[in-house]
């Protein structure tokens, strides 16, 4: 079980600051959602935690250790990432892609053994991708690829998972299926989960806490009930909306107000 901490982190590309003074913590078994408009810096934060880009200043600690000083192999055993719309080499089979998740656990002279195969297979069963095992990636749909990448992260056996828009381009049943899967993993294995989500309703249903980011700064953070309200949405997104409790679980649901006044056609005018 690991704790993830960001301490006054500043991020950017080529001198342009994208994320300013970001501080938050994620505890084991907790799922935290990063929400905010396009370009607010959600993906940048995911990249920085997984050390794809380096920090301008501040510190990111995983299990108390500085991520920027950890060898990549060590980091990959602790932290798995589901990228936004991952590109996969189309000639590889689904099984071969998921097997790549074992890479950080193997040394230079090691080949994948029976144990790695079994872990890979279990990961595929959990994500219902085992029926695709021998298919080539080029033949798979967007939803199948998304599930495959999640299977790869499971095969990686990390203590912490970052997801960048894991449900983008999926239909409603696949969105729920994938987030259910991640939520269960988070609870069962006490994983530390951070998900960048653009769908506020899904974020509200699944995340224990939400961090609302605007122009690279934290605008609000707390439980979905504390963060999702018409005032915050107006301030950050510039959109008028109504927020109601979900009829089944009482969590906030956002209903956007249509700009033209709404309902005009129903009134028959």
């Amino acid at each position, binding site marked *: 079980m690991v704790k993830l901490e960001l301490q006054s982190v500043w991020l950017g590309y080529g001198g342009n600051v994208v994320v300013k003074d970001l501080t938050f913590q994620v505890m084991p078994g907790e799922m935290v959602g990063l929400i905010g408009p396009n370009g607010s810096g959600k993906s940048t934060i995911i*990249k920085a935690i*997984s*050390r*794809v880009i380096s920090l301008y200043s501040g510190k990111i600690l995983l299990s108390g250790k500085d991520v920027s000083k950890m*060898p*990549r*192999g060590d*980091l*990959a*055993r602790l*932290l*798995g*990432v589901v*990228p936004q719309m*991952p*590109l*996969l*080499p*189309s*000639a*590889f*089979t689904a*099984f*071969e*892609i998921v097997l*790549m*998740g074992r*890479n*950080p656990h*193997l040394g*230079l*002279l090691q*080949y994948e053994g*029976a*144990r790695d*195969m*079994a872990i*890979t*297979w*279990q990961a595929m069963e959990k994500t219902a991708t085992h029926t695709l*095992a*021998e298919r*080539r990636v*080029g033949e798979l749909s967007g939803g199948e690829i998304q599930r495959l990448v999640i299977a790869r992260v499971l095969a*990686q056996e990390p203590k912490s998972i970052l997801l960048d828009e894991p449900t983008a381009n999926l239909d409603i049943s696949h969105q729920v299926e994938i987030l259910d899967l991640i939520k269960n993993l988070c609870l069962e294995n006490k994983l530390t989960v951070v998900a960048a989500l653009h769908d506020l309703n899904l974020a509200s249903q699944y995340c224990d806490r939400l961090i609302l980011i605007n122009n690279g700064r934290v605008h609000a953070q707390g439980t979905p009930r504390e963060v999702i309200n018409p005032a915050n949405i107006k301030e950050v997104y510039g959109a008028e909306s109504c927020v109601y409790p979900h009829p089944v679980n009482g969590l906030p649901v956002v209903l956007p107000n249509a700009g033209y006044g709404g309902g005009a056609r129903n009134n028959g005018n």
Partner: protein
Amino acid sequence: MEQSVPIHFPHWHRRAYAILGLLVLFGVMVAFATTIGSVQISFLTTSSILLSKLPFVDMNPTWTSALETIILEIRLPRVILAGLVGAALAIAGATYQGLFRNPLADPYLIGVAQGAALGAVVGFVLPIDWQWLGLGIVPLFAFIGALLSVVIVYNLARVGKTIPVTTLILAGVALGALWGSIVSYLIITSGEKMHGIIFWLMGSFSLTQWSEVKVVLPYVVVGVVVILLYSRSLNVMQLDEEQAQQLGVNVERLKLILLVAATLITAAAVCFVGTIGFVGIIIPHAVRLVWGPDYRFLLPLSVLSGAIFLILADLVARTALAPTEVPIGVITAICGAPFFLYLLRRKKRAVFF
């Protein structure tokens, strides 16, 4: 927790058997290629001579020492060097393709060949004759030219601590074009040396000696072993650099190690025999078509296929118009170009890379 995978993977076994099969074919090919030549020697005699030199094999010679000299001192070094160069170019090609995630990459894309060619031509033109560690001036300059070229390209392409692949390829193509024009200029002003230069540029294994094999062998062996060690990392690199990093691959270090290894073996391969084209590009693609893209199998299969292919190509080069030798680059291009057109037209399994 332990639980076996309920499906088994027949193609994994198939690939393992393919490696064994190609090893056997390689042995047969060596014997076959050494059998054929201007002096008639039977396949049986050739095989016996070759086998008698293997460790733990005891045989009474039933052949003359002249035959043994022809086989072991004249034909065998040529065949072995062809095999080594074929293996080197094929694995280097596969490595560059994987590293750059570009199906058109070959050992020459980043200026290695043009650097070697420029070095060799300078060696031809300079009015000195000089030897160093068994290397004549032409192979020595070719080797240095290839390495220097990659060092320049690498430094041109570097942005801070990272090497963007696109920049690397662009820098290689641009520098290669510059070297190419200097080579052309040197050729037309070289006078009576022109024939030797052009023959070197098209590649040839004629007059190969064991001393040349001894120079090339260590580079190829070390390079191949290093590349094979990183075959799993090359698989992960096929995702993209970001995902590879997130799966624990030190991408920049991997690029440097594989670039150095592939370039060293390419430079060693071309320095004696000239710039032989097409091997580095067609062999890995042919292997992919038959056995799939997994680098753990692709790399060893490319080594063996490349060796067999170039031994065969050299056999054609020296026998087709005997006693005249055809430059081997002509043979590989004759096989390579139609193969490429075939790949281009093949619609059924478009995704093989």
